[in-house]
């Protein structure tokens, strides 16, 4: 019974997510669509199970929610800051900089989330990863103190991601 369950539902949360996406795509909530979404949610993870060998080890939903809120708030604040820079700072006075962030995260998924977060917050774009995956290259639009930006990213995002992906 347990093996059948694991065979049928290799990723239960992915199943739920796919069903939710299907219902949102239909743009209306009805029993038939929910059932069809669940069927898709079973077929798709089953068919792609080869490429998802690992199970996530425990989900920290509360920490994920607080991380999302922190990131959304930072996106809003950084947007206004960058809009101000675009409108007021002339090109000659712009101080773009490369910063190198030494990574403590090792999981590829966690590094992907960190790089995506850095790009989504305006003013910083993650550009490259070092050959062994231990450093992240980030471009900053305008800063007086690159080290402060690096420490900010490490303390604000990376420490939270370390707790989520443990």
């Amino acid at each position, binding site marked *: 019974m347990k093996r059948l369950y694991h065979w049928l539902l290799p990723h239960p949360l992915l199943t739920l997510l796919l069903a939710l996406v299907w219902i949102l795509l239909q743009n209306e909530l009805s029993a038939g669509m929910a059932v069809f979404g669940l069927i898709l949610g079973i077929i798709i993870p089953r068919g792609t199970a080869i490429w998802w060998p690992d199970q996530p080890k425990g989900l920290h939903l509360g920490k994920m929610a607080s991380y999302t809120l922190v990131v959304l708030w930072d996106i809003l604040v950084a947007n206004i800051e*960058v*809009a101000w820079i*675009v409108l007021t700072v002339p090109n000659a006075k*712009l101080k*773009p900089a490369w910063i190198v962030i030494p990574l403590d995260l090792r999981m590829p998924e966690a590094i992907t989330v960190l790089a995506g977060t850095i790009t989504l917050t305006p003013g910083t774009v*993650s550009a490259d990863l*070092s*050959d*062994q995956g231990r450093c992240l290259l980030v471009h900053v*639009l305008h800063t007086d103190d690159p080290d402060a930006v690096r420490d900010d990213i490490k303390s604000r995002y990376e420490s939270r991601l370390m707790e989520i992906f443990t």
Partner: protein
Amino acid sequence: MSPDMIGTYATAICLLIGSGFVIVGVIGLLKFNDPMTRLHAPTKVGTVGIGMLLLASMIHSFTLGQTSLHELLIMAFLFVTAPVSANFIAKVGIHRRACDTPPKPSDDTTWSTLDSPDPAPAADGKQA
């Protein structure tokens, strides 16, 4: 004020804020003069700009009484795909030496984009 009026005003305000951010993004794209700083402008359009326009669309659908939550999906897909394309553009810039050479990584030997056996292509775009 009736709920209809409040909805209409909220839609209008969201549309204005969203288009304001989009126009600032476009100004940034035109004003900056090297590829890496230019890359910063679209990230702003992609997040708050489009986000506010989609929020306006959602509020509008609620005031009309036809609930629509499609927009949440658009936002989710944008948030997932935008960093990937920005990362690829940045990698192309580094590979073609179109920007300042980045500093060496502190832990490893080099950046993965620069770690290629081919010689670097010319920056003038003549070489395939």
